[in-house]
């Protein structure tokens, strides 16, 4: 069931004799979408109606404004969430982790060109609580991203 504002019938009438072009826009259903119904008031006298209507082009169109709304809102919230997470990683994370052993490998990697995997981090991550596991996964992911960043942005090995 299409809502009221999601259908329209649009007629474009080109210039005709001394009448300028016009666009008519009504939200009619598909079966009423023709020149005789939509063009109102009729700018020409009765005997010219047919000729005028032959020049007009009427198109029935549908859209889903809900889809648009939902898409845009989801999109904006994802962008927002990503930005927040980025800020968190940039600003907050280093602070609360200052004495955390996890930061260690991060610094190491920036020194050595050839990064060696640090299996202990993942084996430590196999802890019991959900939080620790999530943190382990996050840590691993951060290392991957760092490695990717080095490959793409610094060493220009890939994707350049």
């Amino acid at each position, binding site marked *: 069931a299409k809502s009221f504002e999601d259908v329209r019938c649009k007629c474009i009438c*080109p210039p005709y004799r001394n009448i300028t072009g016009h666009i008519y826009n009504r939200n009619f259903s598909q079966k009423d979408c023709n020149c005789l119904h939509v063009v109102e008031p009729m700018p020409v006298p009765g005997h010219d109606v047919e000729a005028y209507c032959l020049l007009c082009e009427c198109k029935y169109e549908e859209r889903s404004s809900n889809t648009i709304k939902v898409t845009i809102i989801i999109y904006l919230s*994802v962008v927002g969430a*990503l930005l927040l997470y980025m800020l968190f990683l940039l600003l907050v994370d280093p602070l609360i982790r200052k004495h955390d052993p996890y930061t260690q490998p991060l610094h190491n990697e920036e020194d050595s060109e050839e990064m060696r995997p640090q299996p202990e981090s993942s084996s430590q991550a196999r802890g019991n609580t959900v939080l620790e596991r999530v943190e382990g996964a996050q840590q691993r992911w951060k290392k991957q991203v760092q490695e990717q960043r080095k490959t*793409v942005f610094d060493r220009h090995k890939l994707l350049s």
Partner: protein
Amino acid sequence: MENPGYCSGSFDGLHHPSDDDDDEMVDIAGATLDFSSTDDVPPLSSGVYEEHNGTSRTAGMNGSGPSRLVDPLEDPLPGVGTYEDFNTIDWVREKSKDRDRHREITNKSRQSTVALLHSISDAFSGWLLMLLVGLMSGALAGGIDISAHWMTDVKGGLCLRGFWFNHEHCCWLSNETTFQERDRCPQWQSWAELITGKSEGPFAYIVNYLMYIFWALMFSFLAVILVRAFAPYACGSGIPEIKTILSGFIIRGYLGKWTLIIKTITLVLAVSSGLSLGKEGPLVHVACCCANILCHLFTKYRKNEAKRREVLSAAAAVGVSVAFGAPIGGVLFSLEEVSYYFPLKTLWRSFFAALVAAFTLRSINPFGNSRLVLFYVEFHTPWHLVELAPFILLGIFGGLWGALFIKANIAWCRLRKTTCLGHYPVIEVLVVAALTALLSYPNSYTRMSGSELISELFNDCSLLDSSQLCGYKQPANTSDTGVDNSLADRPAGPGLYTALWQLALALVFKMMITVITFGMKVPSGLFIPSMAVGAIAGRLLGVGMEQLAYYNHDSVIFKGWCSQGADCITPGLYAMVGAAACLGGVTRMTVSLVVIMFELTGGLEYIVPLMAATMTSKWVADAFGREGIYEAHIRLNGYPFLEPKEEFEHSSLAVDVMRPRRMDPTLAVLTQEGMTVGEVESLVESTHFSGFPVVVSSESQRLVGFVLRRDLLISIDNARKRQDGIVSASQVVFTEHTPPLPPDAPPPLRLRCIMDLSPFTVTDHTPMDITVDIFRKLGLRQCLVTHNGRLLGIITKKDILKHMAQMANRDPDSILFN
């Protein structure tokens, strides 16, 4: 075998089938980089237990995680049979693995009903996967279309009826639109109106200008910063990398879930920022990410790199299908341009997936006109044979521009790669975005997005149109033409002349800016800018031809077909042909391009003009350089890609290419018996080869098999740790039966099960063209060279690529990967 248990999974107990399998599953897509990215450093150095863990995680990434214990087809040792990052897979081995698996399932299906059901579900899982890929890619493409459309319009203003409406949808039901200004309505407020309250005047113009630049900078900054922070692999077009991946290369994480998210998000940002780029190439990447992630739901595809690549080939078709609303064109694109191994089964499946995706997209209806692309046109006006001449001219233009663009873009990218320019990717993006915004706002044809521009250029002028491009002088008697509301040929009016000047400027601008835009660290496709350049050129030529015909319709050329009052030249068609020619010049596509254009226009009538233009364009461009933009980028990056289109032209023999060269020390080989674990280890340590041939004895050099370095190290380390009595003095035995050993010797280490008993061999006299053909067609990673039955050397894919580079007078060290 005396100890059959050893080789078939006696260590499975060591792996914890713990509840963190879920976690592993989550991490599957975003694959980890366990080993260093170059293979000259042995990956196994930090203790055995950790290594075991590490490799099991790698196996998990390859997808053997959760079901490892239930599936008897599992590799004997975790890690054996997997690949390192930035390495090439062995197609033969992978396909053979899949066939083994299939055979096992078929055999079992005769035993029980459950197994039968399993075999049936296994057989249909490919189709199910294709359905899912189609649905997901279609939905994502719809979201991208809607968001990009909205964000592009946000640069100009905002809708008061709901901020989520773009300009067109804001005025969707408005009655205030006029014939001249079709999208003006009070609900849509430009930034000047919102900020200053005025909509006209120089001040409002300046405010709008500044806001336009501000948003462009904002969007591009967000795009590049998100790419940098979360998924560096999400930048660029992605097609060169996907080509390489499909040919067998492994880039872990390139098709992971973070890449997918970030590429989707930043693609919208990049497109909306007004940069001269399109969304088509990245959509292919997005579709491939979807396919790769969905592959993990099905054992058949999760575990097998070759099977997964079949799915990825289909996903490439899906990407083009949603980008252009052209399912058949997408399949042909995948076949012609992207894929390496494309069996018929994949043809059917990719067609199915492309259709599903196109239908999903159509049901989302992102443009509100039931079309899949903004620049869909439907004309059926005829063309005349004489017009082939301008079409071929357009082809020549397209070819020249394509060749020039490739040279310029590659030079620029090389600069970025080698000089310090590459160290400031964020600043580069911002500068280019600012420049683009600054220069493009004043000209209405550059201010609008690429798709809109193309849509306007493709459109044929009728009486119903009011755009500047249709600014012909009105004939005296309009209404006499009666029913026919097409615009017969008419003299150009001042509006059209203005439009032509603007278009000419836009052409120059687009040609320049695209060169430095493509290859920046944001997602960027090349199709739309190329098509825009071609469409502008085509439209200009079309209008020129039209006026020529109008003023000379009694001349010899036009007499036969261009009588007065007849609509004999369609500038929109010229724009279309020009777009095809330029795209063809850049990418060197032919058939798929023609089919895409033909699906865009829905008319078979224009196949011949399109074909003439793309063929000319390809020939002209090929005269300046054989490779398209994607191959050029592949070569620039030194990916290990063996071009299937090019023939190997030189007369070298296998013996000229193989290692060791004439001066080198002899090949490092293992003997099938007689070597100790210590000797093997020191041999492996002292070299950096990724595999070793096994021979009967070092005197006879008769070949027995081939062992991969990775498998060998994993097996020895495991055995040392887990198997009793394996010390450095233990013999390594590759034979079927253990040779008699002295009674006091430690037990031997039997490694026949990790040896490839059917290594590929060629003789030393085999011409390299045949060898290259074998590598290409079978997807080999290495091949051994024999002479009269004795082992002489080895040829790897890298050796071949290096040799080909040398033959073409390029630097053989530009080939970086295996």
